[in-house]
């Protein structure tokens, strides 16, 4: 039960039930669509980038507790970040949720509540869908990205 509780922490439930920054953004200057064909989940990520800084970020779509909470937490963590920081943070996040290393992930801050995903390899794609979509948005990819 312990790793199940670690996966479904209160913070995760909170962000699943009341996702932050969960809306479309009319003034976005970057956006992309992500798709997890395994479960049919879809997410859109919207960005407002000025002078290399993410001024605003939001997402829309529906998914499981893990993907929704991850998208919500990601948007909180990305606001005000420099675009050049995104790649490094995603790498760290990815390493954390895949259990690629045991090192502490201090840079991730609140995102660390998703560390429990590493015990559930089938759910890694849920946790990373929004991140892949964020990267696609920054690259202005017009084709929806997929986790497959």
């Amino acid at each position: 039960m312990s790793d199940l509780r670690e996966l479904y922490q209160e913070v995760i439930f909170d962000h699943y039930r009341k996702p932050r920054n969960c809306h479309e953004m009319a003034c976005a200057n970057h956006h992309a669509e992500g798709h997890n064909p395994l479960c049919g989940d879809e997410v859109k990520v919207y960005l407002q980038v000025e002078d290399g800084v993410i001024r605003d970020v939001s997402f829309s779509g529906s998914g499981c507790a893990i993907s929704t909470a991850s998208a919500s937490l990601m948007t909180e963590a990305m606001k005000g970040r420099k675009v050049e920081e995104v790649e490094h943070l995603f790498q760290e996040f990815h390493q954390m949720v895949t259990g690629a290393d045991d090192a502490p992930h201090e840079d991730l801050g609140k995102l660390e509540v998703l560390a429990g995903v590493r015990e559930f390899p089938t759910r890694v794609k849920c946790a990373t869908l929004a991140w892949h979509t964020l990267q696609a948005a920054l690259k202005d990819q017009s084709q929806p990205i997929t986790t497959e």
Partner: protein
Amino acid sequence: MRMDGERLLHPAAVDDWRRDFPLLRETVRGKPLVYLDNGATTQKPQAVIDAEVRYYQHVNANVHRGVHHLSQRATDDYEAARATVRTFLNAASEREIVFVRGTTEAINLVAQSHARPRLRPGDEILVSAMEHHSNIVPWQMVCAQTGAVLKVIPISDAGELDLDACAGLLGVRTRLMAVTHLSNALGSIAPVEKLIGMAHAAGVPVLLDGAQAIAHLQVDVRALDCDFYAFSGHKIYGPTGIGVLYGKEALLEAMPPYQGGGDMIRSVSFEKTEYNELPYKFEAGTPNIAGAIGLGAALDYVSELGLETIGAHERDLLEYATPLLAEVPGLRIVGSAADKASILSFTMTGVHPHDIGTILDHDGIAIRAGHHCAMPVMKRFGLTGTARASFALYNTRAEVDALAAGLRKVAEMFQR
């Protein structure tokens, strides 16, 4: 719903059956496995595993070509498996039994070899709204190749085919009806006798997708009078990578080969190639010999237990599980057709099916979560996915209890 004369199986009988399946002794995260994903694939009895091992240890050789002893034995065993399939389906002849990779390949074969040469722009193929992708996409492909049009028989909110609508859709341009015998996403049993009667009255041949039905319902292709029947070995306790296309001999005879290669020819020269007779015309290349032999063993196993006995046991599980699950807070069963078998699809308020799947898996309970390769069915019900428990002969009421307890835990975690 229980038929007259049907008796509840003694629980000890199911325990005996369970012992035939070595994988059921596995544990998951230290807990006994509760395998309820039989709609995806079934576990294999020792008899099937032994048949494949015996083949590779004692018989392995290529079929239909060697003069040596082993080749003859391999050919005999392979053809004996075909005879077993013929008997199982009550087909008229072994010439009507084509070994393929699975249901998907069987349907593609009919789409390309039967439908494609006949279809003209504006012709129509009729499917239902509760098809698996494998009984949709091959028809879309052949429609794109020929200019034919796909028409869809709607289903009710309960998940039952609308026969009146079907009558309206069957027209002078309808060239083929392709419907599922048992819906993988809803568990609805299609009224196939009526559908076949209606289609034949309009001169339209019928393909039945038997991927789900084959392990749960008795299939007599001559009593049904269906024109094609497709199923996969792995959903009826047999190996993966082997399946069957049944086709009426006259129809198969009139069809060009699906693939070219060895074994499907009688003679080859650069000027002219003569095709082999049925069913070899459709079996190009070295077939899945071990798979066919394993499938034969699986059908023997099922026949020994009796599909009637198995069906009654599974009906009991479904009748036991339906009200039990309906009591779980926030749970809604998707698909309430009067005639159902083996499959319980459901959603839970505020819980994504993937989360249900993960939490149950933690207790060793394996279910399917997602769209079940039936996205149009999900769309019909305004869903992106469901959770699905699907039963097989070796499941027990105790496992249904474990499922219900697991789902209550899901409800507690998410609905606090």
